[in-house]
Every structure is written in structure tokens, then in C-alpha cells.
């Protein structure tokens, strides 16, 4: 496994992504950040903290568990379902989905279904820390921390202090 990005890199990306979100939205009005479990959640909280520093506005943050919306249920081992804890006012707002790694796009598709089950947002944006390519669905992120060309067999792991004790992005070559 090779460490590609360290804690300082992650912090810089989060700050830049916060600026990009605000620029794309023309400010913080109407924003709701929804972190896709697991690591999208701490990322969403960090983005909200960064936005609070920049604009002095507290943007609501929610957690989204997409397990029940996946299309590959029967192909995987039984997974525990996590909590979906969403701010009540998704209706008519700009939802920003936050995920750590964008890969096939299937998680995002499930997250879009999960979001629309909660209400009808005015628009939905997608933010990811790493885009590693190999999409299987027509999904594109609005804001990307870093594009990382990989082989399909490679593994890309984002570690965050809140879940893993350290901030870093590591890549392992496939067989």
C-alpha cells in the first residue's frame, strides 16, 4: 500500500471543496450536506465546519445509509444497516451528497434513491474526496478532491481520523 495523500493534503482538499460548494451554490443558503455512510459522514461534518469558518453559517448535516437502496443485495454478505439520520428539511433545498471514493457510481445511484425517499430537494450535488474512475453508471461528481487514475484491481482506501484514527489516502496495486 502506498500513501498518496497525508493529513495536510486532506485538510487542503476539504477547504477547497468547501469553497467550491459555496461558489457553486452562490453562498450557503438552502444547503444541506448528506454524508453517505461510513466515511462520507465525517467528511460532511468537516465540510460544514469549513463552511462555518468561511461564511459564518451553520449548514445542516445528515447521515445517509444506502444499504436498503442497493441493487446488489443478493451478491453481498449480509450487511448491518446503519442509521439514516437526516435533517427534516430536505424539501426544496440543495442537497450535497458527500462520499469518500467515487468508483462504479452504484452507491451514488442508491444515495439518490434514498434522498428522494426523504422528500424533493430543489437540486442534488455530489462531492467526493477521490474519483478513481471505472464508472458503471452515468454518474459525475460536481466537486472532486482529487482524480486518481487506477486500475480496476487496485484498492483505494480513504482513512479519516474520526473512523480510522488517521487522515490519509492509500492505494494498493492489484494482483
Amino acid at each position, binding site marked *: 500500500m502506498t500513501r498518496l495523500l497525508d493529513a495536510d493534503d486532506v485538510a487542503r482538499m476539504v477547504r477547497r471543496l468547501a469553497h467550491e460548494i459555496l461558489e457553486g451554490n452562490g453562498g450557503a443558503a438552502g444547503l444541506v450536506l448528506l454524508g453517505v455512510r461510513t466515511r462520507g459522514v465525517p467528511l460532511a461534518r468537516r465540510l460544514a465546519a469549513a463552511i462555518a469558518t468561511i461564511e459564518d453559517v451553520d449548514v445542516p448535516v445528515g447521515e445517509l*445509509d444506502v444499504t*436498503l*437502496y*442497493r441493487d*446488489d*443485495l*443478493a*451478491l*453481498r*454478505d*449480509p450487511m*448491518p*444497516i*446503519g*442509521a*439514516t439520520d437526516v435533517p427534516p428539511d430536505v424539501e426544496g433545498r440543495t442537497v450535497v451528497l458527500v462520499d469518500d471514493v467515487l468508483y462504479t457510481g452504484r452507491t451514488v445511484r442508491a444515495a439518490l*434513491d434514498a434522498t*428522494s*425517499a*426523504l*422528500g424533493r430537494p430543489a437540486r442534488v450535488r455530489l462531492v467526493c474526496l477521490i474519483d478513481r474512475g471505472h464508472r458503471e453508471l452515468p454518474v459525475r461528481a460536481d466537486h472532486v478532491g482529487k482524480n486518481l487514475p487506477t486500475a480496476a484491481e487496485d484498492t483505494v482506501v480513504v482513512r479519516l481520523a474520526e473512523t480510522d484514527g488517521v487522515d490519509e489516502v492509500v492505494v494498493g496495486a492489484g494482483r
Partner: protein
Amino acid sequence: MTAPLTDLIAIRDLDRAQVDDLLDTARELLPIARRERASVPTLRGRIVCNLFLEDSTRTRLSFDLAAKRLSADVVDFTAQGTSVKKGESLLDTAETLMALGVDLIVLRTSSAGAPVQLAREVAVPVLNAGDGWHQHPTQALLDALTLLQHRDDLTGAKVTIVGDILHSRVARSEVELLRLLGADVTLVAPPTLLPDVSGWGVTVSADLDAVLPTTEVLYVLRVQRERLHRAFFPSTREYARVWGVDAARLRRLPGDALLMHPGPVNRGVELTSDAMADPRAVITEQVTNGIAVRMACLYRLLSAAPRPEVDA
């Protein structure tokens, strides 16, 4: 890793990790009912067959809603007006259902042991929705979920179950699950309605009033008039006087205790109307939790069993 669930027949088939997983899953599924769109697409395209060979309105409705909240298709197969009345055997029926392509069978029957027999014969998961006097596992699970919404832990919790233990599949499942979760169970029953409970790990008492002051959970069983072919007690009035729970009796129950009943209640027999209105009663919570628990069971049974021809 929790062992995958292939059928759900009896509580004793589950280990603690599986029970905890089902209850955790149910807790996460509970809020779906309150969402704007009160269903998730998880089991879309799966067919759940409710095979109900014994009258039941509430349990069937609960299973029906559970499957629909997960977007499964539901087909009903009830004893009324079907070939079962024409003498078709359970296994013939099962063969037909398999040929029709159902993915899971929910079975309610008056024959104890029929779900086990069915599970041996069919390739799809079988979920026992009550078989005779034997088991009713989802009832016990929904009761455990309800209790754990009010208590962090059931270890050492003093649970009193009162009523017709002999004919009660609820009591059998209940005792097994409560013991697995560490509760102390006391059974109170008329001697004629108490089976041999040696080996159940419970205490038996004949004096309801004596055990009430130390009871933390009072579980009142339904008097199953339809099961009483013989005279087990002199009259329903006599039953209500000795074993029934009314407001006066509830005054002996601690203020923070819980009152439960599997429904439907025979008002004025095992529970009076004012007892049902007591703030310690959690009977409607039990009904709500029943849907979430059944969703969790369907989800686990169907996600653990990949269909042969899945197109990745």
C-alpha cells in the same frame, strides 16, 4: 460475523448474535414508516407468499405491510376457499407455490411442527408466523424490541407472564427469547392451563397479586377461547376475577413497570379497558414494532439467500 438466517422457525434456533442483529436491523427500519415515501426498494421483484392456514387478521396484515414497506410483491394464500379445504396437503401446496416462483413463505398454521416440515421440503426460506401451540418467533422478537426501547438491558429483568401458558405459542417463544436475553421469568397460570415447564428455566407461581410488586414487566396472554375445547376454567368471569388484570390489580405493579399483551385483547377477560388505558401499557407500541421486526426478518432471510440466477 453473524450466521446467515435460512429459515425462522423457533427462537431456540437463533443465537444471541442473530437476535441482536435482527433487533438492530428492526431499529434501523422503524423510521421508514415515518418517511414521506414509506417504503424502500430493497426487496423489489421478490415474491413473499403469506400462507395462512389458520385465521389471523393482525399478523397477516403486519406481515403484509412489512413486505410492502420493503417493496416485495405479496401473494396471499389463505385456507378459506382454497384447495387446502379440498384436502390438498401442505406439501402439495408448497410444491405449487415453488412452481409459481415465490421467494419466501410465511406460514401460519394450527399444526405445530408444520413449518419445520415445510422448510425441509422447499428451497426457499420459511418464516413461522405461528404454528399451533409451538412457536411464534416474530411475536417474541417484537416484544423484545419493545422492552429494549424502555430498558437498556434485560439481564435480571423480572418478567411475569400470566394466562393460558398451555395453549400459548407466544409464551413458548417469549420464554425462550427472554431467557436468552437474561431475564428472570415467572409464569402465573391456572393449574389446568400450565404445561410441564421443567427445563424452561422459569419460576411458577399461582398467586398473581403476590408477584406483582416485584414485577418489572407484566405480560398478559390472551385467553384463546377458540382453543378451549374443554372446560379449563369454570367461566370467563371466574377467570377475570382470579387471573385477569384490572386497574385495582395494576396498583400493585411498580410505577415504572410495563404492561404488555400480544393482542387482540378480550376486554374484560384477561385485561379490563381501564387497565389497557394505563400509561404503563405499551400494547400499541408492540403493534408498531411488529412491522419493523417482520421487515428485519424478511430482509435477513432474503438477503442471505441469493437466488440461483442473479444477473450481476
